[in-house]
């Protein structure tokens, strides 16, 4: 049976792992290879690295650390953050990333998703969406969640599916950083409207939160703080999910 995936997320800036609370107030939590390797050995099913580096200069280091990560971990990993061209996608896949996630650039130029999916296959293109409730539906936010767009999140996600992306990484701006649980309404609305896998992100503070998201229909759950600060191990989380009849990988 297909297992539900537990995915630690590592935010990287200037080649170092950091974690944002509401996307600001960063705390240094270490080296991407070191942390990624630790999660690999602990039983993570996959890893996501989001490069939140602000400057073009620093971003040039991405390919280097992606290569170093690929050298030492043997589970799939996704790299996202600031990707705006097919050439950048190619460079990251060539460096060893299994999947690349695209966010703001796709909102400006949706055809980027189509081009990248055709060039490299749907399976390695992830559409990352930062969504926030505005009183009249969820809107898409870009640039690390700082800028509101006119796009309706559900429509945008359906468009991404049509353009050929293989997966949706769905972050709720409302719940991100709160550690009070994923936005289950948003998650339920999204999983009900598309036929590609959805990774839930934003708000995980306990194993119960992961369980709720998987029960609402998420195929995978992304979490950062609960793992980074050793509050729960991946094994503890998987034990809890298995006790609650969620299929998880134990080897």
């Amino acid at each position, binding site marked *: *049976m*297909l*297992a*539900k*995936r537990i995915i630690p997320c590592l935010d990287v800036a200037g080649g170092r792992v950091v974690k944002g609370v509401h996307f600001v107030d960063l705390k240094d939590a270490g080296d991407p290879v070191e942390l990624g390797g630790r999660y*690999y050995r602990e039983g993570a*099913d996959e890893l996501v690295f989001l490069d939140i580096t602000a400057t073009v200069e620093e971003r040039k280091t991405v390919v280097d650390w992606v*290569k170093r990560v*690929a*050298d030492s971990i*043997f*589970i*799939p990993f996704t790299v996202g953050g600031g990707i705006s061209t097919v050439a950048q996608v*190619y460079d990251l*896949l*060539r*460096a*060893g*990333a*299994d999947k690349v996630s695209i966010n703001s650039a796709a909102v400006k130029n949706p055809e980027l998703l189509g081009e990248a999916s055709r060039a*490299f*296959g*749907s*399976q*390695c293109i992830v559409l990352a969406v930062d969504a926030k409730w505005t009183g009249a539906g969820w809107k898409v936010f870009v640039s690390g969640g700082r800028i509101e767009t006119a796009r309706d999140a559900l429509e945008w996600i359906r468009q991404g599916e049509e353009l050929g992306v*293989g*997966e949706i990484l769905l972050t709720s701006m409302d719940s991100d950083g709160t550690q009070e649980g994923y936005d289950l309404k948003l998650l339920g609305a999204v999983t009900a409207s598309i*036929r*590609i*896998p959805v990774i839930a992100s934003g708000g995980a503070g306990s194993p119960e939160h992961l369980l709720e998201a998987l029960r609402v229909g998420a*195929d*995978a759950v992304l979490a950062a703080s609960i793992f980074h600060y050793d509050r729960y191990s991946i094994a503890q989380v998987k034990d809890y999910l298995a006790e609650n009849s969620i299929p998880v*990988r*134990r*080897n």
Partner: protein
Amino acid sequence: MIVVIDYKAGNLYNVGNALKYLKAEFTVSGDPAVVSQADRVILPGVGSARAAMESLTEQGLVEVLQGLRVPFLGICLGLQLLFEVSDEDNTPCLGLLPGTVRRFNSSQVKVPHIGWNQVSGVAGQGSKRSERTIAPAVPQPSSKLFEGIPAESFFYFLHSYFAPVESPFTLGKTDYGDWFGSVVARENFYGVQFHPERSGEIGLKMLQNFLEVQSS
């Protein structure tokens, strides 16, 4: 020398990384002269069936691959290319195994099939088609590739097309809405639908097993 086939499609890096980790000497090449001298060949899974077959044809590799007598491992798309034809752009493939590769039905399951799933053996090798599909799963494919690997281990899958389960050359099957063929073998040709190079320690063990398969 192990040759990893380069068909100009992207991520060969991770198969190479896994081989490096296993301390196996290998070269990445699309040169028919190099491939025909290989003592082991890996065809990794990248991109679409149509693009891959066009590239293999352009490089003059189709007949070289079909004529190999050394151990061969097709990974993901590399398994699918072993069959006669793929429904992906209706592409004629290498034809080393009978049957057609089909697309998952998105009204039944999410497509692509992404994530960790289990591989079971196929009961009653050589039995009739109807018996093979309804027979209960046996814990492990009877293949050298699975020696020392615990039954019901999970492997990482990432694909939209799948091989038939009702084939005499299907040794392992996986459940995604319905059963599909996830491990195939015919003489020196092996194929796995999952990515051993992304399947953690268990996947590395399977790759190591392939490196120890003897030439027939």
